[in-house]
């Protein structure tokens, strides 16, 4: 507002038009993102008959027919369990490897540090479909195909760059003097990390873990290629929803999107920090 007030050149009409444009853009973008989610939720919470009916109700009827049918659909329970298992493994692996890497990047100077950071980001530049076939062949040879740990390894590769970058910015935000003070007060490096750095970094590490979980939860391509029996929810829905009735698709979609949305909303502050935007 102050920026606008400081520009006396702009006539009131121009300013008004500018405001309208801003509001319109915001509305358009919000609708673009929110409308599909709205439709998804409305339909998921409607009875199977209402989903195909017209006109739509603005508020859903809160009929859990579609959802309960979806939950009881053969294989959904198992796929849901697989998704949680793979996502949890991905989360553990990403933080297990990512947090030490982020700590090293923030605390130590070593040759090739800049290149390393760049390479971490570069891993995101390879399209997964390009890697999927050789990966599948290799997984079959090593017996990792169709296992939760095998898929979790692939998902970790996807989540790791973010885990490294989030924890890097997290540890960089903790003054090194706090650690040094702990050393002079009788701590070993490990004790100082555990007693001083970890308590301060824990909320951010948790956020980074949730983000890794979400990446795995949402990932469909590798899951579809690398699993047959032990399908995750995404792969399962992709495979079976093609032939399913519409209301089942909506229920499945909602079951996938809602947890991911909640997770990302919970950790948004740290995701902004990852890109160097100050926490606001």
């Amino acid at each position, binding site marked *: 507002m102050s920026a606008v007030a400081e520009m006396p050149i702009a006539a009131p009409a121009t300013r008004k038009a500018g405001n309208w444009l801003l509001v319109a853009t915001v509305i358009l973008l919000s609708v673009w993102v929110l409308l599909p989610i709205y439709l998804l939720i409305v339909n998921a919470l409607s009875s199977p008959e209402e989903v195909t009916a017209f006109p739509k109700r603005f508020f859903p009827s809160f009929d859990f027919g579609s959802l309960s049918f979806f939950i009881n659909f053969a294989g959904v329970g198992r796929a849901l369990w697989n998704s949680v298992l793979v996502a949890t493994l991905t989360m553990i692996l990403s933080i297990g490897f990512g947090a030490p890497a982020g700590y090293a990047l923030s605390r130590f100077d070593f040759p090739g540090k800049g290149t390393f950071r760049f390479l971490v980001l570069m891993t995101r530049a390879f399209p997964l479909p390009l890697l999927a076939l050789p990966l599948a062949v290799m997984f079959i040879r090593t017996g990792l195909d169709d296992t939760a740990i095998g898929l979790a390894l692939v998902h970790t590769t996807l989540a790791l760059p973010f885990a490294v970058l989030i924890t890097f910015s997290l540890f960089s935000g903790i*003054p090194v003097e*706090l650690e*040094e*003070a*702990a*050393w*002079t007060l*009788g701590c070993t490096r490990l*004790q100082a990390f555990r*007693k001083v750095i970890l308590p301060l970094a824990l909320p951010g590490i948790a956020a980074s873990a949730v983000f890794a979980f979400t990446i795995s939860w949402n990932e469909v391509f590798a899951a579809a290629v690398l699993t047959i029996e032990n399908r995750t929810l995404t792969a399962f829905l992709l495979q079976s929803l093609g032939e399913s009735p519409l209301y089942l698709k909506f229920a499945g979609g909602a079951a996938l999107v809602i947890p991911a949305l909640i997770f990302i909303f919970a950790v948004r502050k740290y995701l902004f920090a990852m890109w160097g935007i100050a926490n606001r």
Partner: protein
Amino acid sequence: MAEIAIKQVAKRFGGFTALHSIDLTIADQEFMVLLGASGCGKTTLLRIVAGLETPSQGEVWIGGRRVDHLPPRDRGIAMVFQNYAVFPHLTVFENIAFGLRMKKLAQQEVERRVTRTAELMHIEQLLKRYSGQLSGGQRQRVAVARALAMEPDVILMDEPLSNLDALLRLEMRAELKGVLAASETTTIYVTHDQVEAMSLADRIAVMHQGHIVQAASPVEVYRNPAARFVGSFIGNPPMNFIPATKTANGSWTVAGLTLPGPKSDKHKIEFAIRPEDVDAGDEGLHATVRVIEPLGPHTLVTCDVEGGLFRAILESNAAIAVGDHLRLAPKADRIRWFDPETTNAL
């Protein structure tokens, strides 16, 4: 009993040499100040003693024990950092108790020591607070209390007062001096503030470009600078330097004045005098007044002497105007001479 001996310690960062073979011995319970401009290596030297930096060569001994390969926690030191480094996730009590708990002292002893040091630093009413609820000065007190509670042989302080405002700094300075003298520890204190150094130190080590130029008592450093740098760095305004030309062996001409001086085979050396050590009179250095700054108790007069700037602190009642020609007589016992090539005192 903790004498600190630094023996031929050097530190190189890649191609840059931060410290050139430093030798310094600090007596038990001595208050040693490392003084120098930023980048002179004083903080690096302190961090080497603390064990936060590894020397490229040389030895560090504390209390007759070689410590340069030991981690900080095994050196019997405590450190106060410039930005205080008070742990934000712990209360003031737990901050002060942190090191004591690491030593696995009994709860009773922890409480006794925390209470005693908190009283000493006047923060006993803050023990339940967190760092975020404290002012800069209070955080500073917590940091000092945390170091004192360890009852260390050596306390290392890295510019502990430089983040405080001027008035608070003055107050804390006097308090620190009293508290540290009573604690019977050996102290190394790093600062760039010469007033702080003069007022606190038993001995000042003046550092410049990775060397210790002079290590002596504050008065000695002020009166008898070992090198031109010390004279120009310490004192506000700093020492005046004027080129001197040999007239006979042991006799030198300085700005139209012939003075007895050191015997030297050099043809040109430098004459040096503190601004307060000259008197305006009928005899003395030829000076033309450029700027007059009345300071209350005395007047700072900036003059031209032999084409260079010369600052003199004169009686405030002296009737002087800009452009006046003055004769400034140096006090004979305060004159110092420097070799312009080595910059060392003669």
